[in-house]
């Protein structure tokens, strides 16, 4: 059953894609036709022999001009008009029986007193093709058996979409699709352009490495460290006697004066928080010292749930199951992620090392931002990153001395959102892929959108999953990934808005 419905769905999606393309072509053709007719220059009529060598638009113009204005002709009269001409009943001195219409288009032109008629036809065709396009996007074009079952739902969705899409196109889409300075203008602490000269600073001398069972001090008490929860490039995260807290101990080589200065800055600052239904940002709460009184790391609140990496695996669509399965959960996680990152951006903080291991997601889809000590605040850089989240301009740079920009953060966040919405697949994966870094550098975003071809999309279900995303979400991804998009990427706040409406 599963495989049968999966195949059926594959066919549907391809059909939708084809219908969508046809609809857009039709729309374009109708638009051009109406513009052509509307823009016809009023010219005086010339001889028949001359007319045969003229462009067709001039022929239309002459044919229309040649007619005595009103009587307006009905559609029926128009249809029989060529026959009438052929039968030797000239309608005007210039339209004799030796001038049969040159094409169906000319016949239509002859049938109407002016270009306004064709403009009307164009407008009707435009509306119809627009409806078809929206229907294709709303999954209306399905085999009859399924369409019968879901017809009512889809019709209402189509109507809803019609209204919403027009609204979006006029207001929020402008923000999604065009680069704006909105996020920058919202910053409380302006983003700095020069890194702090004292970062990363010099290593702090410590006597020995600490591990489980060691005694550390934070707040006003001593605590015994528990087991290691995770180990990263900068240090280890350990349990402590308080189950709601975790301690991060830096490795001796990363335990530097610059990092302590950054932590003290964070502890002094008024840091943004998330609403409880979105999640939580696990900010550093206090510095951690060893028994000698030497600084070793910091304490933070424990996040709930599992790493986004494994959550993506659970929500991954498969060929064996309908693509819509878990789609709502994927959208909820993406929405919460975008909201959380937008909250940081609003106060001029960049997450920097955005990746699928720095977010925890609980059963309700709430997100917990961890590894917050690596965020880029004020002039303190975010020194680590995973290359598959870095835009081409930051690949192979030493991030300890380079500050990220909102633009590069938008790229990283869009990669993260793409992997969430698509069940873990990287946006630049395509036929003939190389490593993620090289794929990003190539700037080839392989998925279809409007006139963009999807020929390089990776094999399997990924193109179908892509086509299930809402139109404006797809448009924003294309805007972020296709070609050299530096400086043109949509702000994360617009993503949060677009996803909230999806």
């Amino acid at each position, binding site marked *: *059953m599963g495989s049968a419905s999966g195949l059926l769905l594959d066919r549907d999606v391809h059909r939708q894609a084809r219908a969508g393309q046809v609809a857009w072509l039709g729309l374009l053709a109708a638009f051009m036709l109406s513009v052509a007719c509307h823009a016809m220059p009023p010219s005086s009529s010339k001889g028949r022999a001359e007319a045969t060598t003229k462009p067709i638009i001039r022929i239309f113009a002459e044919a229309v001009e040649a007619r005595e204005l009103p009587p307006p002709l009905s559609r029926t009269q128009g249809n029989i008009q060529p026959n009438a001409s052929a039968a030797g009943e000239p309608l005007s001195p210039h339209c004799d029986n030796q001038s049969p219409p040159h094409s169906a288009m000319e016949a239509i032109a002859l049938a109407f007193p002016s270009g306004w008629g064709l403009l009307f036809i164009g407008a009707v065709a435009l509306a119809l093709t627009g409806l078809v396009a929206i229907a294709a996007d709303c999954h209306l074009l399905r085999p009859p058996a399924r369409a019968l079952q879901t017809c009512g739902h889809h019709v209402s969705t189509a109507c809803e979409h019609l209204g919403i899409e027009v609204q979006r196109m006029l207001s929020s889409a402008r923000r999604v699709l065009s680069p704006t300075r909105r996020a920058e203008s919202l910053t409380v602490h302006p983003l700095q352009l020069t890194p702090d000269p004292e970062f990363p600073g010099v290593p702090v001398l410590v006597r020995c490495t600490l591990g489980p069972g060691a005694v550390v001090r934070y707040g006003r008490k001593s605590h015994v460290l528990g087991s290691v929860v995770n180990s990263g490039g900068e240090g280890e995260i350990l349990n402590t006697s308080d189950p709601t807290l975790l301690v991060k101990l830096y490795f001796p080589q990363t335990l530097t004066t610059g990092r302590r200065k950054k932590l003290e800055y964070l502890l002094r600052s008024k840091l943004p928080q998330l609403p409880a239904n979105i999640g939580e940002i696990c900010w550093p709460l206090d510095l951690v010292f060893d028994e000698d009184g030497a600084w070793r790391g910091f304490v933070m609140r424990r996040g709930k749930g599992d790493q986004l990496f494994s959550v993506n*695996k*659970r929500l991954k669509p498969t060929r064996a199951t309908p693509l819509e399965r878990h789609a709502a959960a994927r959208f909820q996680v993406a929405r919460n992620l975008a909201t959380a990152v937008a909250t940081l951006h609003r106060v001029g903080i960049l997450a920097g090392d955005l990746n699928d291991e720095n977010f925890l997601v609980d*059963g309700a889809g*709430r997100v917990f931002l961890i590894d917050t000590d690596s965020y880029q605040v004020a002039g303190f850089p975010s020194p680590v990153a995973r290359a598959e989240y870095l835009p081409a301009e930051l690949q192979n740079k030493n991030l300890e001395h380079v500050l990220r920009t909102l633009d590069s953060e938008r790229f990283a966040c869009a990669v993260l959102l793409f992997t969430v919405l698509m069940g873990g697949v990287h946006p630049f994966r395509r036929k003939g892929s190389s490593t993620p870094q090289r794929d990003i550098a190539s700037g080839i975003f392989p998925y279809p959108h409007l006139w963009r071809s999807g020929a390089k999309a990776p094999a*399997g279900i990924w193109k179908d999953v892509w086509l299930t995303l809402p139109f404006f979400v797809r448009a924003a991804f294309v805007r972020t990934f296709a070609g050299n998009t530096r400086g043109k990427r949509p702000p994360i706040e617009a993503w949060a808005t677009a996803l909230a409406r999806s």
Partner: protein
Amino acid sequence: MRPGRQRSLAADNEQETRTVRVSLRNSNQDHSTMNSDKAVQDVIPQEERLELDASTDLTERTEAQMPVCFVVDVSGSIAPYVADLNASISAFCLALGSNHRAKEVAEIAIVTFGDGASVFSPFRSVKELLELDERGQIVGTKLPAFDAVGRRTAMGQGLRVTLDLVDRRRKEYDDAGVQKLTAFVVVFTDGGATDETAAVVKEMSKRVLAGHLHVFPIAVGGQVDMAVLKAMSPQQEPTRVVSGTEIVELLDRLSAKVIKLSAKAVTTNQGS
């Protein structure tokens, strides 16, 4: 309709029902943050679907793939080390399997050479190679064990088979549109080659320089022609091991390296 797929779907549905119960129980314990959003429903399934994710379909894999190929000399002279070689390759697979990212990224194959050369075990994802009990705990690997029975050492043929195997896999990644990381080739041998190796070794070193391969040549015992091993990989000195314990330790270090490459090779500039 494939019966396997039916079974996994049924298991999936059952799992979902169970996980919703689990998550509801969890959420009841979280009074601190859940009070304000009682209306929020649990939407994320709590447990990973191992049986669905261990798919042989390349197109359904989401991570970049890293092929790891063991090229093992199975001439009779290596017999004293065969048990340790088998055990250490299994331990290597288990070590990768215990890392959540490496088990998605790495694929393992074994090529053996002795009188001739053949693909003893084709490329399979580490996740697919893990043997699980009813509770989903890892209890072993599905890698087959090889024996040392050959009289000759057809190393040239073995390397040729390896290069073809890796090339074919990389081509399959291309066709499926899967991103690929540099392949790992680990060569174990205990003697000199009995066939022509110059051409294939040259080709191998060329691919190492092109960034397609990492080659780790390992000499087992003291009778090995080190010049050939050195020529295979211009970037990596051959390692000599003389006991089973050393083989186990070496592969342990190698698994840590592969884990680091699968998870952190893509991380740039972690401190300086």
